């Protein structure tokens, strides 16, 4: 049994404590926007926010999460895809297949919370999630757009 605060709702889940948070979010809680890609914290498709910091949920045991920890998934980032990162992603048509993009958006949102005007170097260091479609150029442009509130030029 674990008590989890996900997207502002506290839930009790029946699960073995060594289950990765990713799979609890996907299977017990039923929020499937957070994705499995590698299971070893390499790809970042499973990125969520825990207390405002981006974390790779495939490598966090649910038993190590406290009820007081605030977990935000892609579904809870905004009510209507209105977060500046989501709006910039839409404006630039970042996604291709889209599978990694929940994680990319969560990583970008966490970066901007910590660092509202990141440089290219900051983006290089923070945006380490894998995108196999290769949307990196647009991700970089969209992070800048979200930071500056500017439109694409």
């Amino acid at each position, binding site marked *: 049994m674990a008590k989890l605060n996900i997207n502002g709702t506290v839930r009790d889940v029946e699960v073995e404590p060594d289950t990765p948070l990713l799979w609890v979010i996907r299977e017990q809680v039923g929020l499937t926007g957070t994705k499995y890609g590698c299971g*070893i914290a390499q790809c970042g498709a499973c990125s969520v926010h825990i207390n405002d910091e981006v974390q790779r949920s495939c490598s966090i045991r649910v038993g190590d999460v406290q009820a007081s920890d605030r977990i935000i998934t892609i579904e809870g980032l905004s009510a209507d895809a209105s977060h500046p990162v989501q709006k910039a992603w839409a404006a630039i048509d970042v996604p291709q297949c889209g*599978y990694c993009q929940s994680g990319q958006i969560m990583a970008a949102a966490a970066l901007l919370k910590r660092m509202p005007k990141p440089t290219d170097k900051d983006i290089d260091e923070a945006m380490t999630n894998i995108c196999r479609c*290769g949307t990196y150029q647009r991700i970089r442009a969209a992070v800048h757009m979200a930071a500056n509130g500017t439109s694409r030029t």
Partner: protein
Amino acid sequence: MKKTIRGKAAKLSRRTFIVGSAAASGGLALGFNLPGFGSAVAQTASEGTEVNAWVLVKPDDACVIRVARSEMGQGTITGLVQLVAEELECDWKKVKAEQVTPGQNLARKRVWGEMSTGGSRGIRTSEDYVRRGGAAARILLLQAAAEEWKVPVGELTVAEGVVTHTPSGRSSSYGKLAAAAAKLEAPDPKAIKLKDPKDWKVAGKPMKRIDTADKLDGSKIYGVDIKLPGMLCAAIKDCPVFGGKVASYDEAKIAGRPGVRKVVKVKDTAVAVVADTWWRAKTALDALPIVWDEGPNASVSSASIAEQLKEGLGASVSNGDRQNGDALKAIETAAKKVEAVYSTPFLAHATMEPMNATVRLSADKAEVWVPTQNAEASLAALSEGSGVPLAKCEAYRTDLGGGFGRRGGTQDYVHQAVEIAKELPGIPIKLIWTREEDQAHDFFRPISQCRLAAGLDASGNLTGLHARVSGQSINATLNPAGIVNGKDRRQLQGLWAEPGDAQLGYTVPNLLIEYVMRNTHVPVGPWRGVNTNQNAVYMECFMDEVARAAGKDPLDFRRALMGGHPKHLAVLNAAAEKGDWGKPLPAGVHRGIAQFMGYGSYSAAVAEVSVSDRGQLRVHRMVLALDCGHAVNPDQIAAQVEGSVAYGLTAMLYGECRVRDGRMVDLNFDTYPIMRLAEMPKVETVIVPSGDFWGGVGEPTISVVTPAVLNAIHAATGKPVRQLPLKNVRLV
């Protein structure tokens, strides 16, 4: 081109079509009535009036356009919808897309044509009939207005879904006209005159993708996200050595684990565990002791395969060739001779979404939910495995979390899920592979080596060229019928003579190109851009070596051989110009250039790189030129080119699947790294739309990425790179 708007099929469609209605005749029932299946691209057939197979109009004037090809990120849904909408003259702001199922396609005599999505064919081989589909619907809607108003159809105009009769001041919208239009006789598609692309207003424009919204908030449902009532989940391990099988397993060791429902032996080679959640299935499988009979291949290694290929470089028999003149003699008698041997490794696709399929076998029905590049192959696999006749099978396609050629014809994961589901009748079984299983049981990009030799005369002109590729054949694994009289043309993709959709862009007075088939036990298959990727590395890097030996500029040297290949040359020139070839560079930065053709399109690239004193590579900028004929969506073409750079650079920098003890060694992203954002160069895309043919977009430009960069490295270090990936190479 296949004729698709046939009289009979058109008659079938001339009625209002309500979704999910049992009316839709057995086997036609449209799937995907899943709770929470919200999507910008409708997965349930929408309510509305079907004007013809391609177009359904809603009362609010929204036009639902049917798409048969699979979307895996390449933008084919948006592009195909643009082409239909262009001819339909509907309101782009009210356009929606809907994907058809293979069961529907079969029941309607393949009215939507081929569903297979690969080889960069999505648009180029369906543009004609989808445009005719849109035009036919427009003609019917106009005819309906003409009959209602009793005016000649020639007096009508249409724009954005509104039909106007100016003389009488009347107008009506598609939503109001659709019911009457659906009752009319469809026009002969052959008689329809399509718009001149010069007049396009929607096609040819950088429209935003129509399938982005649900990729931003986590609501898009991929195959791994499918939820069905009563569903169980499965994890699987196939024998790690290809050709081996299951000897035994000790089910008692996992008895009593939470949630575990069943252990299933799958086709002699694999074991699956079924549980209430996937994580419980996966961990129980990890805990299950399995003894493998590894079979005859358990001692094969990368080194033994390399020896096998090397032997092929000198073998007396070849499995495919093209020649003109006498290359061997020309090289032997040349003033100067250049030789090199190149090699490229096995590569995995590494789609972000691992292989998966969800299967439900009921008493009289078989269903699969699957991310697939070939929904008809999925349907066939389902029917074949379950024994349920095709007419009682249906495949519901989810968007793909990456495809890259992995999710095409093989459908191995569907076959597995069917075998598991057979043991649990009536229960939906969702099979998901781990990343490790995905890396262990891919159909890999073929491994090969290439020996090249060239002869130069005293003035540095190329007099003879010989290339011999020794490596594995995709056809031998997947399509033996493609090997004719021992010759396998496919492995020489990009080196073919004209005509063809992957022609060598050089004319050489004495030319010999050979393929020697050397197959291994590792299964191989299409991989975004095969075999142009490997062949472009061989040909284009060697061209630079030869140009260097001739003392000539690599661009000038190529141009001299390309007079008979104007399209290749135009694209090379476009890349050179936009890429500032010959202009000064900052200290330490060097350029490389390459051109190649594949998938019906012409590509060229200029790369700017630097190599530090410690051998650290930095790719600063890449300019890619592409002539794909008609450019349906320039912004999405740019997106594909940007993605192709990342896909190509990942292969060049890191891509290598090693074999040890008969099995794949690199099972996750720790040892099979994928390039990340920090390594992405600035990419500039130059579209050179010659506008007189239809070429592919998803794959062709990958081929020039690696050779352009390797040639720039050669310029920087003075040393050629002949082995990939670069992670194994000391650059200085």
